[in-house]
């Protein structure tokens, strides 16, 4: 009896032993990620990857001071003279304000734009390189690849402006630029010359402009032909190709109108504004919290940074504007901002701006403006003023629509020559305050940094008031991590 029972048990056990599992069961996949192959499987899936890039524009990188492109905009402001820190208490962007981080190759801030734009670029590369056989609507596919190309140009353009010495208009720019990265390689790419990088950027944009023809985007976070043209105008302006810059800017803004003064005063936080050519929106459940653009620049969000260091505007720059100018009306010489009802623990500092407003005091989200039609007017006006092919009147006429929109008392400028250029640049400084242009403008125009005589504090800026034009200090160092990981990168910047 017993033996028979054993036999049954043994037979069952052996069955269990041999068949309890098989290895087919061992394929496991993540549930919060998708496969890289999914992305290039169909054109609609390509759209997912493109959207990823759009959203990456506001994704936090390595610290809360690295909130996507918005954080880089803030750095470009902090390193200029128009964006004034009013308190010493909070460390975010203060080292940049003091011109320290970008010259410290091991600083994560020094690496931040380099890394950020490289990530944008590699995501764009996949859409450009690995989709030859992807099935789907050929028009949509073309529009997606066109946008990827704009991103690729955008990434290289921003990087070369920071990490290489400036593009000298009219010269052959053989100085080391940045690596041109068109596909992934574990061994890296060497630095191309600045000239080569600009050639690449222009070629990408030209292709993109063609590919984006006829694209109707879902919303302003996507890139259409106008945005591609607008970026092209920026590039041309930086290269000092004035005539092309002017004409491209005009073409770019076609179809966009300037916002009303009421809208201008409503907080710069709605990307569906008719003047915004390109921007992002951040939905409720995807906030980057203290890494949001609005966590530093808005007047109303309750962060230590904003409470103790609300951002003011350079008095020398803004005060000459008449009070009728809507942009000046957003700046409160007392810092009270009565209509905002700021909580009592918000420091009141003179000349702070309420141009930007976050959703509310406890939500730092705001839509971030990457490109506005106003910039296109300013590019056109500046380019015409600097070009020998246009008269001063041409330039003044170009400025008029914008200036008049912002200040209804404004009349056609009678300035000429350098005065006119100066006026246009002042318009640009006030109009684009906070939008990430000033450091790049100073660098492209080979101007010095001059904060003297304004409302900058010695202790906050650590007495960094002046930086001579054209020195090595205007070039960001190549991040140490790149020197360590890219054997082909070559020499560090001087």
């Amino acid at each position, binding site marked *: 009896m017993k033996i028979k029972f054993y036999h049954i*048990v*043994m037979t069952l*056990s052996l069955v269990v*032993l041999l068949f*309890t599992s098989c*290895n087919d069961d*061992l*394929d*496991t996949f*993540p549930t*919060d*990620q998708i*496969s*890289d192959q999914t*992305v290039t499987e169909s054109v609609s899936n390509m*759209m*997912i*990857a493109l*959207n990823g890039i*759009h*959203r*990456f524009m506001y*994704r936090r990188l390595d610290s809360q001071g690295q909130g996507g492109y918005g954080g880089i905009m803030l750095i470009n402001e902090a390193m200029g003279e128009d964006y004034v820190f009013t*308190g*010493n*208490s*909070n460390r975010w962007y*203060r080292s940049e304000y003091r011109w320290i981080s970008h*010259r410290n190759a*091991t600083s994560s801030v020094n690496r931040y734009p*380099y*890394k950020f734009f*490289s*990530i944008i670029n*590699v*995501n764009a590369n*996949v859409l450009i390189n690995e989709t030859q056989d992807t099935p789907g609507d050929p028009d949509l596919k073309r529009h997606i690849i066109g946008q990827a190309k704009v991103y690729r140009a955008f990434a290289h353009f921003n990087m070369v402006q920071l990490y290489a010495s400036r593009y000298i208009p009219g010269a052959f720019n053989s100085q080391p630029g940045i690596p041109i*990265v068109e596909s*992934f390689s*574990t061994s*890296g*790419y060497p630095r191309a010359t600045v000239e080569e990088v600009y050639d690449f950027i222009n070629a990408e944009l030209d292709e993109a402009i063609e590919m984006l023809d006829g694209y109707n985007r*879902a919303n302003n*976070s996507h890139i259409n032909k106008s945005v591609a043209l607008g970026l092209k105008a920026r590039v041309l302006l930086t290269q000092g190709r004035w005539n092309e810059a002017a004409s491209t800017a005009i073409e770019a803004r076609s179809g966009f109108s300037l916002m009303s003064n009421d809208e201008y005063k409503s907080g710069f936080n709605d990307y569906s504004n008719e003047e915004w050519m390109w921007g992002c929106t*951040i*939905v409720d*459940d995807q906030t980057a*919290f203290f890494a949001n653009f609005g966590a530093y620049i808005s007047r109303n969000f*309750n962060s*230590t940074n904003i409470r103790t260091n609300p951002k003011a505007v350079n008095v020398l720059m803004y005060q000459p504007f008449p009070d009728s100018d809507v942009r000046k009306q957003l700046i409160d010489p007392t810092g009270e901002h009565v209509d905002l009802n700021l*909580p009592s623990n918000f420091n009141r500092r003179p000349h702070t701006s309420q141009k930007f407003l976050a959703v509310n005091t406890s*939500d730092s989200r705001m839509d971030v403006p990457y490109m506005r039609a106003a910039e296109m007017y300013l590019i056109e006006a500046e380019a015409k003023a600097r070009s020998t092919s246009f008269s001063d009147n041409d330039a003044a006429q170009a400025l008029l629509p914008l200036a008049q929109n912002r200040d209804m008392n404004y009349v056609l400028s009678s300035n000429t020559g350098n005065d006119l250029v100066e006026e246009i640049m002042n318009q640009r400084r006030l109009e684009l305050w906070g939008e990430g242009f000033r450091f790049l403008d100073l660098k492209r125009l080979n101007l010095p940094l001059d904060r003297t005589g304004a409302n900058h504090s*010695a*202790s906050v800026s650590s*007495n960094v008031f002046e930086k001579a034009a054209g020195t090595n200090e205007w070039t960001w160092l190549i*991040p140490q*991590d790149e020197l360590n*990981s*890219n054997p082909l*990168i070559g020499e560090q910047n001087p």
Partner: protein
Amino acid sequence: MSKNKLSLLIVMLITSCQCLLAQTRQVNGIVTDTNGDPLAGATVQVEGTSTGTATNADGAFSIQAEPSDILVFSFVGMKTVKVNASSSVVNAVLELDSYAFEEVVVVAYGTQREEALTGAVNTIKAEEFSSRPFTNVSNALEGSSPGLQMSSATGQPGASDQSVRIRGFSSVTQNSEPLYVVDGIPGVSLNTINMMDVETITVLKDASATALYGSRATNGVILITTKTGKKGKKSFTVNANTGFVQRGIQEYERVGVNEYYPIQWESIRNSLIYSANPIQTIEEANQNATNQVFGTLEYNPFNVPNNQIVGTDGLLNPNAEVIARDLDWRDAIERTGLRQQFDISYVEGFDQSDLYTSFGYLKEEGYVSNSFLERFSARTNMNFSPKSWFKSGFNLSGSLTDSNFASAQSSNNNSINNPIRAGRFFGPIYPVYKLDENGNYQLSSTGERIFSDDNRGPGASSGRNAVAENLWNKDGDRIMNISGRTYGTISFLKDFSFTTNVGLDYRNINNTSYDNPLIGDGAPGGRAGRTITNSSRFNINNLLTYEKEIKEINLTALVGHEYYHRNLTVVDGFKNGQVADDNNNLSNFVNISRLIGYEDNHKINSYLSRLNLDYQDKYFFSTSARLDYSSKFSPQERDGFFWSIGSGWVISKEDFLSDNNTIDFLKLRASMGTTGNDGSEFYGWQGLYDLNFNADEPGATISTIPPPFGYTWETNFQKDIAIEFALLNRINGTIEYYNRKTEDLIFEVPAPVSSGIPEYLQNIGDMYNRGFELDLGVEVMKKANLSWNVNMNATTVKNEITRMPDGNPIINGTKRWAEGQSRYEFWMRSWYGVNPDNGDALYNADDVTSSDVFELNGEMVTTNQNNARFEYQGTSIPDVYGGLRNNVNYKNFSLDFLLAYSIGGKVFDRHYRDLMHTGNSGGRAWHKDILNRWQEPGDITDVPRLDVLQEPSFTATSSRFLVDASYMSIRNVTLGYDLPSSLTDKIGVSNFRGFMSGENLGLFSERQGLDPQQGFAGTVANIYPVASVYSLGLNVSF
């Protein structure tokens, strides 16, 4: 002391009763150990005959013997005693035989006689730690056995397990923690286990011991075995333990309130005359510094106006008196916590079954206010054998843990609300509470002090208050842990047995986070999060064993199959906009800020086998093999084969040593084999896109790329040779040499930053760990009433990377991984010193042709940190580390103490660097060493000039901040008293023990405040330092 040990042995003792036929008189008696405790199951035999019996549960026996007979009393692990049977009552006292190697130890998939081991195995028994007031079982490991290097425990009650490295560092980038196996289920974390339920902790170190765990065994395996009932024993035990908890490591020495302001003044002044553009005259600079110093620090604790705190002479205004109060944040953060532990358990053993059951309660308050752990645990473990051919058992346990964390975990290193960080780094000029201009407390409408949200310098977290945030916020885990084990063993065909083990561990972690609406990240709306993590581990194995004795050969063979499935499911929600006060549940918040969820699975399918042979109990041989298929690798690369062979030779049993009086025991063993490391990534072989922000349209960005050069296991090839010995009846020990070589190391190879891919996985590189282990026990004194045992262990590690991809080094933080270097070799700027002329920090220059370089004392130096030369600066790996345990017994008193030590290696003291800042981080505390700074030309010092503008250069990460990592710490001292049996009998208990115990009583290291043991990499972070615990306990059984 020895009771538990003996109890374990009893289980293994098999004696056979024999009927006595000889006609003689009856002799009765009791057999006890040296403590007077009765020994159950001891053998009593009439010498020279086959007449024998065994003692019952009370140690009593009766035997038929003639008056001229000699009775032989023996018991496993005790010395045999012979007594003349002339009297009709013969009692015997058996003494422990320290060199008995008949003990049975837990090994992979079974147990084995210690003598027969061919691998490196250490066992830690409950008696070694049952009086210690720690909370996480992993704390028992430190100092206990050779080969274990531990990072510091944290003071946070309920924190995760203490980190362990066994015999060096098998991996560079992948998981290096050993595999924990709790009652047969791998991968379990220990922080919910009641340590009073633990019977033994077994550390498996070499391939012979670990290879049966295959792809997860490279870092060693630690087996936790919980208690079972004891045959012939019946006892109810109450254990109570109460103590208090204090900070175990002192804080760094920092300058006081009166010294602070002038130092900041000097840093501003110096920047104006040395670094500013344009440079100012010294008079202008002095005046500007006086004017600006308040603006930099933003708070005035003195009774003088803001612009007169420091004079233009750089000295504190002689009229300045401190009127502010509560300037030391640690006072408001730290407290003396209470620790209470209460356990009851019952054991019983019958012929066909045994039972262990327990209930435990523990509450520990950390010394940082608002941090605590409270745990209820219960366990029932029973085994039964209803038929002679069938055995089974259930081991069920559950625990419920509630805890609140101070924001001082490793992830909070730089968090503003980290109270440890605030207590360490806040300048001594900022009050915790809001004060009026006279230094008096401002009070709320209800008369309470108001927490300060003053403006402070940037180094002191303006507008925030770590004390208030720690008090009002919440970050707590509620963990429910349920585990069940069962098995069935069928014996058949005489030599075969078949066992199925099934285990399921289920853990639910419900994390509550809450940020208050008054101050901090949650202000002004208030916000709350819930993260619910469900983790289950299911494990089943089927083992077929064949055991056969053929003449003098014992053979045991095992084949089996095992399947493991781990599932991790997470739901995480976060909302802001609090509605009602005092409610941190999500419904009480308005807006969703995050809502995510995901699930991960890890599966392993395995086949395993083992063969053990021994001949004449002298020659031992074992071999094992395991084939693993893991879901962590691609279908083409997921199979891994691991094997081991081991052999042992008990030389002392050879004839030529059998009569040797010096050598009591001598054994040589050696093993080799392979194990694997399946890496930290669930899906490492796949190219993936993150589903990140989408703004209402599906979006994804590249997360990882498929490993471009293939991807599979790390394989560890291990060799081990050891001599075990016992000498002079007093000394025993083991000397062991190990050599472990890891091949196909998985690296996260950093791709060029410009590629936009942070890194990719690749199996590259080889590395070895070699070293010696010494384990030595000495019975210094052994008298009837006094015994003194010393156990010490020491381990050396030599770690070296022998192959890198294409020979290219990889720089990772402060380390550079390169051929010929250890994996923890510091790679940093080479610090030269301070320029006596101007106080500049100087580094040995890299590019000596650069314009910033000049010659000083024959060295080419620069103050430009970007042109500093990077060099190897030593390693964080110690030369030797280990532990020392002392055990003194005098009459019924026992005194134990345990030391842990580490000699050699370096640590990068980032805290010290941050405390030696040059003034850019105004508001941050300064270390006392800042008083040695350079102040005027000619000063010879190694502390550079204070200068607001020179922070990146002067305090760059360099060899300047490396310090010796050697330390010695007093881990535990326990004084115990056992009531003598004469008394316990009277009060009707079988055991009554009272004890005092102190945990982490002192740390001796190079610099006060520095915990050099914090991480294996030789880096430090603002984490909750280890606690000292002082406790009183009582253990009563009846």
